[in-house]
């Protein structure tokens, strides 16, 4: 026998190296894919201990395929994490399948590909981030002067606190409204309802003041100007404060003088200012009287709140307008935000707030506001409270998606009062499914829901061609939340606590027919 030549020896070596790397496994199948034999690197492929799983995985590769005479599938990861190049040969008696280990090769390729994909994804994210940064920079520049004054921690804390008040306040005001409207209360119950309203109003004022205080002093404050009904405003003040004044045995009156019919102001802000001023006046007047005068001077609207209270020493006249009663005597009786917020709100309405006071004799706060250009139709002003809704909203269907059971039930009652048939859901997915099936005229969706957000429900509904109106409710009132809700598909956005009048207006606007 002759020794093999050098070329043959090398070939034999290469063959041995390749076999060692490839760890081939040979599977012989019959024409109907019954396994006839399995041999080769059995242990390497765990074909001894996971025999059936491996054979099934190989069969799966040929599902739906009539294999050619020979062929190959590269870089296949089979169930169980085995990575192979799969080759096959077809003969008269069946199919031979060969698995060659491709793990090292695939892992090496994966490293490179991972780097390249991550770089590309990072580059895309970088591009988006740069865009976002540009927008943020622009916004920061616009607000720079205001932000310097802000205390970020206090701001965030107060804003969060106030937001947390809003959902329960919505429920309190809503149910209160229903009780007042539906019951025929006796004297004691009337007293109790008024006390509840007074307490809730106080909390509402406090939370609105906290929120306003927590908000940076926005340069572009958007006024919500409506034609204002001063009789209603005066009545609201009387309802709110008369019981409190009577408890302290104070004379309390609200008068109106010479006011034109078309006086246009930011009603909510005016009310907030007057609530703050009257609340302060009653708090610091142990005996005597508190009077409110609302009048038109011929040039401006004036609200004058006078009291015969303890008064303010001249040294503290400026300090009272600083938050948290900084340096002011008797400052511990309230949160100390009312006057600073009132001053800010009056300035936002392009007006001024003046103070005269004599210690021991009393104080006078004078608010002067210009008549503003109206931005909304008179019909949209806040005088709808108590009007029956059935006259203008009958026969529609509404779907409420809210996880708070109190709010859900409240919305049901209000919407039924407005003439809707109402269905209730808790989650975004449930709401979406129900809305697709029900095709309601109106969907009211809370943004913060368990699991997916309310915006997902709006988006999916619009993505499925839903053409009904969508009204989004949120505990947050920032422009970003509003933009997000509208971008997802909502027609309108309401921040909590939703006042009944505001809710009715929004529902009417959402469902009004052209």
């Amino acid at each position: 026998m002759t020794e093999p030549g050098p070329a043959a020896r090398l070939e034999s070596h290469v063959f041995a190296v390749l076999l060692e790397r490839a760890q081939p496994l040979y599977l012989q199948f019959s024409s109907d894919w019954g396994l006839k034999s399995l041999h080769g690197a059995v242990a390497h492929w765990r074909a001894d201990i996971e025999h059936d799983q491996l054979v099934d995985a190989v069969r799966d590769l040929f599902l739906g395929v009539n294999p050619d005479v020979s062929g190959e599938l590269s870089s296949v990861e089979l169930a169980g994490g085995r990575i192979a190049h799969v080759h096959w040969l077809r003969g008269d008696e069946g199919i031979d399948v060969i698995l060659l280990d491709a793990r090292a090769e695939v892992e090496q390729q994966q490293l490179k590909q991972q780097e390249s994909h991550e770089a590309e994804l990072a580059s895309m994210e970088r591009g988006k981030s740069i865009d976002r940064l540009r927008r943020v920079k622009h916004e920061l520049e616009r607000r720079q002067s205001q932000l310097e004054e802000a205390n970020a921690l206090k701001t965030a804390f107060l804003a969060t606190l106030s937001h947390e008040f809003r959902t329960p306040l919505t429920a309190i005001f809503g149910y209160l409204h229903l009780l007042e409207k539906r019951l025929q209360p006796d004297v004691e119950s009337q007293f109790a309802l008024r006390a509840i309203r007074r307490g809730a109003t106080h909390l509402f004022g406090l939370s609105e003041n906290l929120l306003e205080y927590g908000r940076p002093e926005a340069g572009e404050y958007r006024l919500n100007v409506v034609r204002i009904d001063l009789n209603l405003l005066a009545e609201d003040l009387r309802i709110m404060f008369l019981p409190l004044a009577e408890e302290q045995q104070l004379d309390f009156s609200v008068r109106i003088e010479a006011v034109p019919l078309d006086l246009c102001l930011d009603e909510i802000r005016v009310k907030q200012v007057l609530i703050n001023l009257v609340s302060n006046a009653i708090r610091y007047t142990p005996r005597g009287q508190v009077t409110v005068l609302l009048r038109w001077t011929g040039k401006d609207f004036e609200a004058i709140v006078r009291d015969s209270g303890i008064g303010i020493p001249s040294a503290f006249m400026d300090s009272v307008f600083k938050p948290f009663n900084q340096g002011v005597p008797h400052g511990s009786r309230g949160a100390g935000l009312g006057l600073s917020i009132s001053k800010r709100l009056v300035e936002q309405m392009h007006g001024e707030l003046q103070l005269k006071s004599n210690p021991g004799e009393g104080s006078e706060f004078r608010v002067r506001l210009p008549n503003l250009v109206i931005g909304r139709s008179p019909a949209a002003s806040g005088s709808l409270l108590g009007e029956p809704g059935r006259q203008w909203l009958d026969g529609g269907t509404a779907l409420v998606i809210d996880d708070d059971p109190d709010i859900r039930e409240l919305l049901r009652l209000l919407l039924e009062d407005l003439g809707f048939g109402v269905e209730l859901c808790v989650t975004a997915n449930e709401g979406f499914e129900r809305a697709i099936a029900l095709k309601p005229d109106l969907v009211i969706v809370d943004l913060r829901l368990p699991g997916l957000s309310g915006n997902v429900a709006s988006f999916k509904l619009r993505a499925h061609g839903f053409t009904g109106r969508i009204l989004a409710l949120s505990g947050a009132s920032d422009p970003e939340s509003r933009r997000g809700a509208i971008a997802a598909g909502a027609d309108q956005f309401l921040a909590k606590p939703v006042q009944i009048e505001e809710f009715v207006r929004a529902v009417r606007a959402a469902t009004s027919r052209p």
Partner: protein
Amino acid sequence: MSEFARKICLLGDFGVGKTSLVGRYVRNTFSEKYLTTVGVKVDSKEVAHAGGVSKLVIWDIAGKSALDHLNQTYLRGASGLMLVADGTREPTLRSALYLMMQAKSLLQDPACVVLVNKIDLIDRWEILPSTLNELRKTVPVFETSALSGDGVEAAFEHLAAELRRQT
């Protein structure tokens, strides 16, 4: 043992979440870490339904915006296609639709569904609802989240039912 078995392929740009969708559907697992797929990963799942047990053999093909020769070899024998896009990257929807067009030219009447993934990141979506509303007129579309699982089972079940209906 399933009497009914079909091969389906997932196609879509890289990073849209194909592997995560399969992980969620087959094993009910999810990993935040992105791991690119090389070649193809083949998995399977058996599902019981009123008509018996069906088996889906799922080919999760490495992400590309167009089919190359290698990916074409993986498609052979497929009865269904799952085209996957990432809602936060609008161009991936165009890639998915292009891949659908290419794959349809290689296969005989495959059943198709489009999955727009990452619904959990809705606030970062670039794809508009009106786009999906239009698309839905020609092909079933599912908004999904491999992270939360929303829409995943429904999308696979829809495709499986469509395949059973075709038999």
